[in-house]
């Protein structure tokens, strides 16, 4: 790699995230921001050797990664890490640190790197972590909504069969029960379905 005087060396960035999709979304963001040397590790097997070989300037690790204690120990004591690494770089920027932890990002940075060089990387990781969590949340909500609709359909079917009423009347019955008991209609439907299943074989 050439070293042009007056220009900063390109940063070596390593992403450690067992969520491969999220890792690739962040990798893409880093590449768009002009970082060419980005490596991604999704499994922890051989991670220490990878770090030794890559000698990264910045390591971004998802906060919930169970191997963080191991990684920190490694940064602290290993002779293989040629340069000391510390979590975050600007300890005075508490808002940023809080945002990172809230988003589920931790970052370890080689000692002596200027904080202005790290800040955009961290900010990008935080916003993309948040975007991925939002997507995951929306997906989970959509899934549970779909499941709830299925349960309500099943409960309506039970009421129609047992009470010999039509679909509209069955739905109204469920809705009234939900209002009377101050519960969600999906919860009432789920109780009905499980009660029916219990009694069903009797």
């Amino acid at each position, binding site marked *: 790699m050439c070293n042009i005087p007056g220009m900063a060396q390109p940063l070596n960035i390593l992403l450690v995230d067992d969520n491969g999709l999220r890792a690739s979304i962040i990798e893409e963001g880093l590449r768009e921001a002009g970082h060419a040397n980005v490596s991604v590790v999704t499994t922890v097997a051989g991670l220490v050797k990878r770090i030794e070989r890559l000698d990264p300037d910045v390591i971004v690790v998802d906060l*919930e990664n169970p191997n963080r204690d191991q990684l920190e120990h490694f940064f602290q004591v290993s002779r293989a890490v040629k340069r000391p690494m510390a979590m975050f770089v600007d300890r005075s920027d508490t808002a940023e640190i809080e945002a990172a932890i809230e988003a589920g990002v931790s970052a370890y940075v080689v000692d002596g790197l200027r904080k202005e060089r790290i800040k955009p990387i961290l900010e990008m990781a935080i916003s993309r972590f948040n975007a991925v969590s939002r997507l995951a949340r929306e997906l989970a909500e959509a899934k549970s909504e779909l499941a709830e609709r299925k349960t309500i359909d099943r409960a309506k079917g039970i009421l129609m069969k047992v009470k010999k009423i039509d679909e509209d009347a069955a739905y109204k019955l469920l809705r009234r029960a939900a209002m009377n008991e101050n519960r969600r209609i999906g919860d009432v439907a789920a109780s009905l379905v499980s009660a029916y299943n219990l009694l069903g074989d009797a």
Partner: protein
Amino acid sequence: MAGTSFIRAGYVPLLDGAVLIAAARKGFAEARGVALALQRETSWATIRDRIGVGQFDCAHMLAPMPIAANLGLGPLPVPLLAPMVLALGGNGVTVSNVVAAAMDRAGPAGYDAAPAGAGRALAAVVAARRAEGGQPLRLAVVHHHSSHNYDLRYWLAASGIEPERDVEITVVPPPLMPDALSGGGIDGFCAGEPWGTIAVTRGVGRIVTSRAEIWRRGPEKVLGVRKAFADENPEALARLVLALADAAAWCSRPENFAELAGLLAARDCLDVEPETLMPGLAGRLQTAPGRFRDIADFMVFAGGGANRPDPAHGRWLYRQMVRWGDAPSSDEGAAIAGATFDPTLYDLAMGIGDGNQAASDMTGDDDAATPQGPRGLYDVNE
């Protein structure tokens, strides 16, 4: 009386998280007017970070962690207190079958009845390896600032093994220890239960000694509390301490062990088989297939002053941190470590004395320690 206090706490899924988990799930917190919101974490680093930025008010912590924070070691250090001890003991040293077989050849029969014998056998194995030019044994602990690390090093050094030269000490998350042992990534580990028991029942290793034997009744986990939270919410914290004391008393009664094991084994908690938790609770460990050993005070949740923090213990842990190069040596550091384990808040919450008896504990003169170290160390004559 004020209304319900909402307290957020983090924990790592281990047997010694029992007191916090029982307080939240068996209604002990609620009964004392505390809504205790527990969050499971997968690493001590995340516990430290979340308490550091104030997402947790308190947490299940390795005993040296709040000392490290108060000494400004590691990332995001914030002032912490350890107003209560949550568990004593609970850890075992497990080695691979290969190492255990070599220890069997090196040691006399029954060498593992006490740490000194097990240490001599391990030292012989280490020496033989070095003579053959073999790789040094790789031993894993759960965290750098942990009693596992310091007790293991204490035991190795007392056995004539130099931790920095003769073995390699690394860090592995507890649930991954049995796999790392069977895969050959490590030759042994010191971790909390149930991971030693799980390694033995899977046939991948043997328990050769335990923390309760190396340092009997040494503090293992504490309640780490943000000092800012303690200062602003003294009443809520006192109620939490009372609730935890109730839970600790419940956890330590043998008739509750089966229920406790079921509670902890749940998928959203430790996610293990309940029977893997019983040996640790009862202090009767299967150290090798078909071999059982009763270990006194193996895992202590309450009784005999177990929950009262002792400044002498804080200072002893600090001495271990200094000994192994994790902290510079200073009188100030020792004072910080002692003050971290100040029992004043515990005494106030429990209604013991007027809280002033702590003062004598903090100015030296502690009866819990000899010049060689605190009571209960296996190689210190009392």
